[in-house]
């Protein structure tokens, strides 16, 4: 009896000794909407930007917003991104993942009933992924305790909205959260930093109550459907100055229009209509620790990263390189810039040490895609013992001949039809030539079993797309090519992300949502410039009107090989030449 009691005492004492004093957030939580309820539950009214430290680019984006955008097939089931997710209607479940042997907290896992999203908050001290990693709706989160406050930093968030009525959030946003618990009340502060659309961090706070009884509404079975016959690729939006809802919100609710237009200056006490925009505070978007931001490649670093199935992406060698590996050997899409080939070959060796490079595909003629042609081709070998074959559309070869590119660097396996396909590594490889995209030389490669598309420069996440009318490029051709990618891409079930992955010509690994946001941008800018061309505006007038203002902070450049001015000029030149866009009715 005494022995049993003493052992029991040992067990109780050991169990009672607190290993850490941290608060537990485990459980099912449901939102409380005692702030901004009309915005958060029924939904915001168009033209209401109040309370947001947004910039002019965001206002332009919001002014163009048409709620019918939600009817676009690819948008119908799109989840909210993290900065909005907890603001909107939501309930979620939290559980812990602990290291079995030590019981150390590895991660907090979340399942969100809204859009059936999954979220992992890593608690093991790891750093954030590199900048070329895919972005997701929930992003990549790491957490750390500050006493009883859990502080979470999230990057790699897809582009989305701070409000459902079109206040944009860029994929360069970083969100810091602070979670606090008092009894059955969870308070969550979110602070979003977005150098593209916000002039300073945007703080909000929400409350959630622990659910005593499990709510059964945990599923989101969304299936997109064409409900009204319309152009599948229509992107509803309002041209500048034509949104009839601007001003309605303020007059309907007795509010000063200047305040409804938002801005950092409107958030502070004493603000009056007509107040000047707040001057930016120094380093207001900075200060993040290196490990809390997407890591960058070191200068000269070339790296192979797995994408999906048999396909890898090599980064750091100029344009992105897609590499397919299997029993038949190696197929390489694009060759990178001159001078990087040694590192590219080493990277390929790292993922396929015993395989020969059999094929190469050039998605275009530009040197950042083809500079390594000769070195990589020579390093490879066809089954007949020749150097690896280079496949490209015949216009690439013609352009190279004209430019005096030596035979050893030129593609000899050219094609002239719209599609070329062949099996390799037990996988159908489909090459598609959009007739006139950036130029008349582009190719898009799809690995059908791996479910990966190498898009070439038709899609890139680092700049506006090239539109080069002098090389056979057209605005509509770029849009058509993006729509082709969208037609092939299928997101994963429920999460509405992943599924088919897209390797861009430059930038991070993407999926359907990333491409559709890029396509929407291209359609909107096209429509604006088309409208200006129809009004007989000169190129200088068009540039001064800044038809790409809402995207300049994300894709624009004032210097370098492809500036915003060149982009505007390319579209203007194309549309002024009399070629009519096929889908002009996308603008109201």
């Amino acid at each position, binding site marked *: 009896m005494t022995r049993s009691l003493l052992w029991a005492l040992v067990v109780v004492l050991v169990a009672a000794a607190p290993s850490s004093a941290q608060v537990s957030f485990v459980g099912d939580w449901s939102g409380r909407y005692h702030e901004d309820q009309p915005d958060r539950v029924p939904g915001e009214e168009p033209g209401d930007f109040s309370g947001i430290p947004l910039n002019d680019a965001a206002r332009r984006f919001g002014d163009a917003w048409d709620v019918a955008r939600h009817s676009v097939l690819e948008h119908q089931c799109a989840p909210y991104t993290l900065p909005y997710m907890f603001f909107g209607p939501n309930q979620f479940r939290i559980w812990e993942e602990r290291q079995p042997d030590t019981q150390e907290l590895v991660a907090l896992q979340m399942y969100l009933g809204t859009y059936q999203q999954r979220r992992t908050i890593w608690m093991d001290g790891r750093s954030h992924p590199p900048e070329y990693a895919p972005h997701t709706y929930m992003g990549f989160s790491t957490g750390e305790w500050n006493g009883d406050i859990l502080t979470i930093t999230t990057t790699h968030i897809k582009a989305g909205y701070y409000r459902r009525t079109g206040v944009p959030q860029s994929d360069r946003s970083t969100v810091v959260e602070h979670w606090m618990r008092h009894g059955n009340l969870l308070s969550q502060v979110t602070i979003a930093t977005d150098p593209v659309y916000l002039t300073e961090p945007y703080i909000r706070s929400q409350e959630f109550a622990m659910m005593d009884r499990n709510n059964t509404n945990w599923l989101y079975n969304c299936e997109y459907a064409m409900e009204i016959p319309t152009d599948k690729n229509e992107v509803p939006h309002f041209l500048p100055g034509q949104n009839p809802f601007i001003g*309605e919100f303020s007059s309907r609710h007795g509010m000063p229009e200047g305040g409804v237009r938002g801005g950092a200056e409107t958030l502070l006490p004493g603000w009056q209509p007509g107040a000047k925009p707040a001057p930016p505070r120094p380093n207001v978007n900075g200060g993040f620790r290196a490990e809390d931001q997407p890591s960058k490649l070191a200068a000269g670093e070339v790296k192979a990263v797995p994408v999906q199935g048999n396909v890898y992406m090599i980064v750091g060698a100029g344009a992105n390189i897609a590499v397919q590996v299997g029993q038949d050997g190696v197929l390489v899409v694009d060759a990178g810039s001159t001078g990087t080939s040694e590192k590219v070959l080493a990277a390929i060796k790292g993922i396929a040490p015993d395989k020969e490079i059999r094929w190469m595909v050039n998605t275009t003629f530009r040197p950042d895609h083809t500079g390594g042609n000769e070195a990589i081709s020579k390093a490879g070998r066809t089954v007949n013992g020749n150097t690896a074959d280079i496949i490209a559309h015949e216009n690439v070869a013609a352009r190279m001949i004209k430019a005096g590119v030596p035979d050893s660097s030129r593609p000899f396996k050219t094609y002239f039809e719209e599609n070329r396909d062949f099996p390799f590594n037990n996988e159908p490889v489909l090459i598609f030539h959009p007739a006139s995209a950036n130029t008349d030389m582009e190719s898009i490669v799809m690995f059908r079993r791996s479910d990966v598309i190498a898009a070439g420069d038709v899609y890139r996440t680092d700049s506006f797309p090239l539109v080069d009318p002098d090389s056979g490029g057209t605005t509509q051709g770029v849009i058509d090519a993006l729509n082709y990618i969208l037609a092939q891409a299928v997101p994963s079930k429920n999460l509405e992300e992943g599924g088919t992955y897209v390797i861009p010509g430059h930038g991070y690994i993407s999926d359907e949502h990333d491409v559709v946001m890029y396509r929407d941008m291209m359609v909107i800018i096209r429509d604006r410039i088309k409208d200006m061309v129809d009004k007989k505006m000169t190129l200088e007038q068009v540039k001064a009107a800044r038809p790409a203002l809402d995207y300049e902070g994300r894709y624009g450049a004032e210097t370098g090989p492809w500036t915003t001015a060149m982009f505007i000029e390319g579209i203007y030149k194309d549309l002024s030449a009399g070629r009519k866009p096929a889908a002009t009715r996308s603008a109201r």
Partner: protein
Amino acid sequence: MLLQPLRGFRCRAEAACICAAVIVALVAFGRSDVAAQRGAGGAPQRGGGPGTQTARARGPVDFTGTWVSVVTEDWRWRMVTPPKDASATASIPVSGEGRKVAAAWDLDADNKAGNQCKAFGAGGIMRQPGRIRISWQDDNTLKLEFDAGTQTRLLQFDRNAQPPAEKTWQGFSRADWEGPGVGRGAAPVGDSRVTGGGLPGASGVPGGGGQGLRGGPPPRGQGRINTGADIKVVTTGFREGYLRKNGVPYSEQAVITEYFHRLPTHPNGDNWLEVITLVEDPRYLSQPYTTSTNFRLEANDALFKPTPCQTAPPLPVKLPTKPTPLQ
């Protein structure tokens, strides 16, 4: 003695084993308990113990300084006086009686009756756009001065303090620290362990920057740790007032519970005060009304400019006359 065979044990070795385990467990438990009282790093307490320390000395987080409300939420109800329309009570779980009182709101009548401060009482003052200057009035009283309405709230940490007989706009607030590190005291301004460099706060503002766990593990990379402790405040004994400028009421029977958190310093150096407020009112609310309000620390109180209690009349509502595409 302990190693004497105990009744029920097969041998001396087993008894010794169990006794040793008990001792280890007790030591572990005791150490954890002490550590928890001291804080994660086990720094010794100041003074004799919680019972003898002042609230100021026990406080592990520094809330002093001037804080400005940054109105990113409920903007249309906070920055302007909202109209008496269908959205007048939106977001607030008003009861039927509360709805009636809100609908009967008459700004002119309030002004004539000398009730201009009804929107600046304990239930509404935190939601008013304005600045709060926080300082210790004495070792057990934290003073909150509001420039909006020129109001003052006193958070009484002294458990012997008694509420005044007469109700006031701000009522009587009983406060206490809660959470880790209580009893350790806040790091003083300029403490190099706080700022990592002896600077007056991470952003050059007073208040210490709220980072650095004294005696505990150093922050990873750029330090931004505070202890995560908070002040819990329960307020009663106030006059009836408004949760919103437009007359959504709270009654004298309400109880207001607040949690004051100083958030870990943001990477850009901003320091935020988060005030979580629960208003429980059996008369005018159908459930607890929960809000959280954000304030940013300012470098000084230069912009703290007291103004009298005054509510601007709502702007006129103009319903659209031209048809929109949805009509």
